[in-house]
């Protein structure tokens, strides 16, 4: 394995609409274990951003602490990154988003970071509908501290060290639905065809978009019986639908049999096209998503895909009624009331 990334690029690599090649969206070489699911998710992020023709510097990537939170180094090296403290990425992202509503915010977290130490912040970022993509690289264990169970570990599972997990797993997707998150998706690191369009749709969503991505930990939690292992997920994956994300300007060319597809129009005119819909399920109906999720869980299936989207999502800026101009660009004349006003304020205190 080489640790040096060649700088040479083939001159005729395909370019996207703004003239960037895919490598313009890459980052440093990963230092995670070979075969780690997280690296596949990083690759999907690179692919999604390339396909969406995002200017890398218009995106900010943020993370907490853990294996997952290291990954922002491995993609989008022309984007500002913020590797914060354990479980606290949501508050940093919220503040950053308040300061400049014009950038894209991509948060990366893990199951320890989101479901344990950062549960409070995770929940409240959903509640505020902060306009961001929030990817949980969910491997059901603590990798960086060598394999302890996490809050998403299956009940009854044995950790590498031999300890049995006595507690039920927290389902972040179910929780997000309960909290009325406006975009809830789940995917699998090994399913690039599903993950890339989901990330693209999540980026386009004006609000908090949760993607819970099952990402096997090859070192500590890839036992066949683990619901976060490659074998298990491949055997039990039930997709609600396969997904195409179609940007506004493109014509929708794929057509499906009637009754087997759904189109969800996004705020910016782009469209998510879903087909092979699971029965009794509508991506715009939260109740049916909850029901479908519970049914799958009872059967031991890992339900993936776009589970729910609120097309009327109003993000935090919208709810707070802040000005359209980014707050970080306001200057003295827009912010400071001046000495004349202050003289009147003084008079009120005499």
């Amino acid at each position: 394995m080489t640790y040096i990334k060649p700088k040479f690029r083939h001159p005729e690599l395909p370019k996207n609409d703004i003239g960037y090649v895919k490598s313009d969206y890459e980052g440093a070489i990963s230092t995670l274990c070979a075969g780690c699911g997280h690296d596949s998710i990083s690759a999907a992020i690179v692919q999604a951003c390339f396909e969406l023709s995002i200017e890398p510097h218009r995106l900010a990537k943020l993370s907490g602490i853990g294996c997952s939170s290291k990954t922002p180094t491995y993609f989008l090296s022309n984007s500002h990154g913020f590797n914060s403290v354990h479980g606290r990425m949501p508050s940093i992202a919220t503040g950053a988003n308040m300061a400049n509503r014009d950038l894209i915010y991509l948060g990366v977290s893990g199951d320890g970071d989101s479901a344990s130490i950062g549960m409070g912040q995770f929940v409240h970022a959903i509640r505020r509908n902060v306009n961001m993509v929030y990817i949980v690289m969910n491997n059901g264990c603590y990798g960086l501290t060598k394999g302890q169970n996490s809050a998403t570990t299956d009940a009854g599972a044995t950790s590498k060290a031999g300890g049995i997990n006595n507690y039920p797993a927290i389902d972040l997707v179910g929780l997000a639905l309960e909290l009325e998150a406006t975009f809830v998706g789940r995917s699998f690191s090994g399913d690039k065809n599903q993950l890339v369009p989901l990330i693209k749709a999540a980026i386009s969503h004006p609000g908090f978009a949760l993607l819970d991505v099952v990402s096997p930990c090859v070192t500590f939690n890839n036992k066949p019986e683990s619901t976060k292992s490659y074998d298990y997920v491949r055997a039990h994956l039930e997709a609600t639908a396969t997904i195409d994300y179609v940007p506004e300007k493109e014509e929708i060319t794929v057509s499906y049999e009637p009754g087997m597809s759904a189109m969800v129009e996004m705020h910016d005119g782009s469209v998510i096209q879903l087909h092979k819909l699971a029965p009794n399920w509508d991506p715009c109906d939260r109740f049916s998503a909850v029901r479908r999720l519970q049914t799958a869980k009872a059967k031991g299936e890992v339900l993936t895909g776009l589970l729910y989207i609120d097309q009327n999502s109003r993000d935090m800026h919208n709810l707070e009624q802040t000005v359209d101009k980014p707050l970080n660009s306001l200057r003295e004349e827009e912010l400071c009331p001046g000495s004349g006003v202050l003289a009147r304020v003084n008079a009120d205190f005499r």
Partner: protein
Amino acid sequence: MEHLQSVNDLVIRFANVNGTGSASANNMFAKAIFRMGIPVSPKNIFPSNIQGLPTWYEVRVNENGYLGRRDGIDVVVCVNPQSMRRDVDAVKPGGFFIYDSSKRLHPEFMRDNIHYIGIPMTELTMQHYNDPRQRQLFKNVIYVGALSALLDIEMEVLHGIINDQFRTKEKLIGPNLKALDLGFQYAKNHYDCPLDVRLERRDKVGDCILIDGNTACGLGAVYGGATVAPWYPITPSTSLVDAFEKYARKFRIDPQTKKKRYAVIQAEDELAAMGMVIGASWNGARAFTATSGPGLSLMSEFLGLAYFAEIPVVLINVQRGGPSTGMPTRTQQPDILSAAYASHGDTRHVLLFPSNPKECFEHTASALDLANRLQTPVIVMSDLDLGMNDHMSPPLTWDDSRTYDQGKVLSADDLEQIEQFGRYLDVDGDGIPYRTLPGTHPTKGAYFTRGTSKDEYARYTEVGDAYVRNVDRLMKKFRTASQLVPAPEFYQKKNQSKHGIIFFGTTTYSALEALDLLKEQGIEIDALRITAYPFHETISAFIEQHEKVFVVEQNRDGQMRTLLINELEISPKKLTPILNYDGMPITAQRIEQLILESFPEEKMEIAAIKGLN
């Protein structure tokens, strides 16, 4: 019986029940005195409770302008039977006890060395008002009316305040004026008015204002250009963010769209509040938060991140009694060390110590500049006494030519012109590196912000040399900070004594008064007020130039003294702590007494010192 006599020199205490509307009547009383041109210093002594528990309002009136708390209460106005025992006992011999005489005072409350003045407040409200809520509210205004007669407060001034207060609710003016008159007439008809403890118009407040520190800080944040204010409610800092929001709503609405040029976010806890400040500041907004004791503890991890990753943070810490939940409604200065060194590892933070509302305003506005200039947390150390009580203060001023300092932020053009951007390179030799904001340039200036160790180019490293270079540069930056923070204040042109005294924040009022008291006894002490940490070099010189230096502060452990010893390598023996930590603001009498006690063999020694001076 002793008979107190004074003009414009008294302490009056109102004993009320929390939640009965007494605050506005008491404020009216203090404001009336202020409008008569007499310096006044009111203090709320309130419980951690919404309704039902005893609450006091203590007003010191002093025409010499001494604004610190004074022991010894000349007049008590008691409308709370719950606390009557304490309130009767609190009156100085020869003082006055004003009470609601609708019911006869129980004999157990009778002392033979104070004067009793009964005003049938409840009875009067029963006779003149029908609505039960009005009866409760106007009882308070009735005693203000009675005080107007008893202490000689100009009725016209009171009328003016009522007119101002109810400008928008005109129908309340009549009933209020009536209540004032009821109290006034009753006192006039039943007692010799005014008493010998009374007031008289002066011209001693100049253009000063009567304002609380939290409001001044909130205004400072508006004027200083803060746009993002995440916070979590905690006494006694809550009213600070409330004030920011109130004035932002007034002055920061886009005239066309009616949208806000600010965001106040009530976070889920103090950790998140601080995280949001860091996120917003990292992204180039001017952001701040306010908290108190427990909140500071919760924010510590993030303060360490901001220190190490070099992100501007403005935190206003309105200190209260600790440790733990401590005394949430009492004042102290107990967070000096935990703020200076907040978070694990080698950290240190810039602290500012305002001592009056004008400085609250200025320090908050400058903290936003300083934090951006230094790319580090700046903590404004207010306290409950300063934050929640009204103080007579010089008016707030703003220079319209003043611009906001964003610090060393590189633009896209700047990035084009430099050869290589290194986020943590010490280009200017002052320890302060250059930063870029997300979204600035398509291919230049992006870097990774992290709480882990890094090299000059923001790359993660565990190489010892790189780590040492980085933390040593942070120390250099901190030394630069000592040149940028407000300079200390000296109260003499040139040292005159072998003894010095150091104080800061709200100990200032009483320390200055104590110096006058000591002077009357022939003891002169050189004085210095600390306004910021890191310490200015003149502080070290001041201590060196004196044999013995008193450090006045409001905590048990003498934390400022410890900080001075630690930072300036001063012999502990040189610094004598003068402490008060019962939750009430320190008095001049206590400072005077402790200083006198600290001299061995008191009087003889005092004479000797006098000779030495």
